[in-house]
């Protein structure tokens, strides 16, 4: 969630600096462009519908999920399925689940504990119980992959050898050990409080940020920390994971969550996927996480290495910022980003300008319309997306376009409203006195006079959209956000910058384009 908040904040602050100079297309030009874009939008939607014929595999936006998604995708392809799409890094569990129910994706990797607690709200995590709970939704779980990514406690290898620590129960005999635990783990009922009771642990732990804990244990400032069982850094920091011999921690078995019709619809792929059962142990998963997160390998390369029978560390090392910036995906991402921005903007102009005109005409309409478009602006983008996915029954470009369209409305509606409101009354009256009918007054006098303000609103929306469009990657719509999301998942700053820099560049370009448009489209008399 924090990553998304950052994106929205970026998008929100940019326009403040550019608000000073803004203008609009002549009505005829704008109308023509609007219709063109609407047709284009329909074409894209049609293309999307066609694409959804094949098997679509989803993944969440953290390293392990990306890698598993990639492994599943490549496995399905090798199994003989023609069209397999990996809708990667789609965001959180709620979004994946909504996409699965809507049929936008057909399966994705998750954990038994997550399915039980977050989706079914039960404590039971065995496959049968989960399948009983999911069946009414037309969903099921299958193919446990072979590792349990649950909470665990770890100590340094040296300490483990010195004190003979192998199991959680061994900690009870050493009350002087210093425990540095994450705040979440300290406070969860299934975290420290229960663990202490179950094993009779005497230590008084201190709360510590998870990222710092690795450094602290390496520096010998703490002895024990909490981790996920497949943390990439386990090997890097020479940690030993203590066995949960009493079975205290809930099961987080990695498995597939799928629509029940998948085995019949994609039999070849399903057969291949089924062979992954038990194929990945915790050590292997940890190594793959490390290959992506610490060695900078691509998810596809890590997955390919695994499917080729190991060697995930043998591929090329991490790439520099420049190589990532001009990576082969640059043009695809640029095109996707531009389309997201331009199509949503065109729709916002087609809807927002008439709405602005209406608010200016009718005081009764003004208050609710301005309140509504203002309210939309305050919705967190991920929440809006999670809401739009079930509503539209799909993930990908459509909900992203709708969200961007909604965010783009406010500046356009408000600037159209204020641009029209600022026309001096004696000029309105002059237009009426000439005998121009209302439609002609709007077209020939009022819109041209408000054009500068309207164009300013469109420019603001465009620049906001360039920033906000980065969230589209969370739901598989592509764009520069894909790099940002990957960078966040991998804690890879170069990758993050490789997404953020072109997005910022595009924002500047868009602003420059509008400055030019101002010269072309705003009547010269208004600049004199």
């Amino acid at each position: 969630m924090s990553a998304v908040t950052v994106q929205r904040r970026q998008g929100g602050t940019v326009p403040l600096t550019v608000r000073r100079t803004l203008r609009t297309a002549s009505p005829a030009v704008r109308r023509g462009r609007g219709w063109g874009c609407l047709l284009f939008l329909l074409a894209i939607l049609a293309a999307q519908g066609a694409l959804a014929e094949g098997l679509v595999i989803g993944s969440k936006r953290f390293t392990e999920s990306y890698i598993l998604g990639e492994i599943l995708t490549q496995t399905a392809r090798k199994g003989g399925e023609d069209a397999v799409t990996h809708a990667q890094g789609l965001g959180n569990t709620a979004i994946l689940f909504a996409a699965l129910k809507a049929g936008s994706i057909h399966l994705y990797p998750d954990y038994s504990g997550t399915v039980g607690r977050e989706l079914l709200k039960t404590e039971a995590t065995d496959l049968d119980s989960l399948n009983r709970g999911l069946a009414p939704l037309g969903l099921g779980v299958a193919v446990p992959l072979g590792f349990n990514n649950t909470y665990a406690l770890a100590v340094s290898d040296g300490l483990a050898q010195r004190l003979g620590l192998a199991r959680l129960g061994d900690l009870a005999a050493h009350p002087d050990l210093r425990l540095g635990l994450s705040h979440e783990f300290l406070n969860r009922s299934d975290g420290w409080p229960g663990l202490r009771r179950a094993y009779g642990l005497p230590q008084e732990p201190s709360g510590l940020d998870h990222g710092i804990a690795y450094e602290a244990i390496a520096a010998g400032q703490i002895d024990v920390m909490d981790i996920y069982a497949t943390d990439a850094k386990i090997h890097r920091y020479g940690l030993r994971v203590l066995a949960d011999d009493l079975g205290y921690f809930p099961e987080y078995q990695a498995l597939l969550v799928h629509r029940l019709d998948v085995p019949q619809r994609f039999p070849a792929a399903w057969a291949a996927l089924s062979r992954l059962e038990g194929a990945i142990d915790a050590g292997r998963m940890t190594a793959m996480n490390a290959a992506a997160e610490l060695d900078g390998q691509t998810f596809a390369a890590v997955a390919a290495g695994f499917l080729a029978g190991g060697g995930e560390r043998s591929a090329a090392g991490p790439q520099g910022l420049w190589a990532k910036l001009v990576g082969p995906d640059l043009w695809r991402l640029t095109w996707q980003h531009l389309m997201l921005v331009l199509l949503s903007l065109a729709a916002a102009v087609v809807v927002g300008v008439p709405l602005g005109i209406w608010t200016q005409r009718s005081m009764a309409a003004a208050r609710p319309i301005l309140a509504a478009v203002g309210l939309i602006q305050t919705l967190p983008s991920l929440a809006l997306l999670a809401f739009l996915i079930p509503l539209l029954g799909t993930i990908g470009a459509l909900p992203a376009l709708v969200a961007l369209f909604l965010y783009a409305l406010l500046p356009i509606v408000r600037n159209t409203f204020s641009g029209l409101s600022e026309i001096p009354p004696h000029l309105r009256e002059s237009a009426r006195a000439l005998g121009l009918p209302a439609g002609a007054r709007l077209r020939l006098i009022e819109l041209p006079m408000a054009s500068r303000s309207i164009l300013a609103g469109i420019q603001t929306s465009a620049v906001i959209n360039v920033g906000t469009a980065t969230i589209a990657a969370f739901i598989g719509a592509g764009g520069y956000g894909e790099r940002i999301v990957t960078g966040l998942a991998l804690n890879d700053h170069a990758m993050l910058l490789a997404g953020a820099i072109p997005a910022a560049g595009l924002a500047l370009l868009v602003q420059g384009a509008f400055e030019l448009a101002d010269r072309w489209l705003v009547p010269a008399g208004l600049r004199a």
Partner: protein
Amino acid sequence: MALAVEGLSKSFGERLALAPTSLDFAPGRTTVLLGPSGCGKTTLLKLMLGLVAPDSGTVRFQGEPVIAARADALRQRIGYVIQEGGLFPHLCARDNVALMARYLGREASWIERRMAELADLAQIPADLLPRFPAQLSGGQRQRVALMRALMLDPEVLLLDEPLGALDPMTRHRLQLDLKAVFAGLARTVVLVTHDLHEAAWFADEIVLMREGHVVQRGPLDELLQRPSAPFVTEFIRAQRADPRLAAA
């Protein structure tokens, strides 16, 4: 009658702008609506154009009652000039003048011919026509506004303080030119002003108003010699020039 009002009245909230009033304006004559600020003269002008809806009464144009559905068509037969000119800032002088004719689909050659005639009449040099209103002086703007009002050769010309915002020299020159234009056109002209001298200069007939009521109507001499109320004399005395200046 070119233009007539019958029992026309208007209030803005509590404030009476125009008490029920009946007047007619004969073809080819210049009538001046005269009075202090807030006397209802501008409201009467706007009521006649249908820019303001009356509380009661009717406006007749060439004998026909003006109704909302036909208002646009009728306005095209009435020229209207306001104090600030009312020129649209995003259109150059030429486009301001030609706006309505183009909207009505008049031929370009017709528009060009008419434009040249009017530029001549209003004494606007051709090289000023491509300029935007902001690039013209106050006097030039009023001349262009007059051209725009006359473009479709209206039967009636309404002017609301057309010279009110001009400096005295420009105002004087424009007074001379306007009177010549009115004389040449022989159209029904209704001009609103608060300036007695301007009224005296233009008017065939003066309608003196006060607080929404017509106080007296007639030629200047009649107002001078047979004032219908003490207010008439007061108003005239308040604006009479110093005799030493009048002699000079």
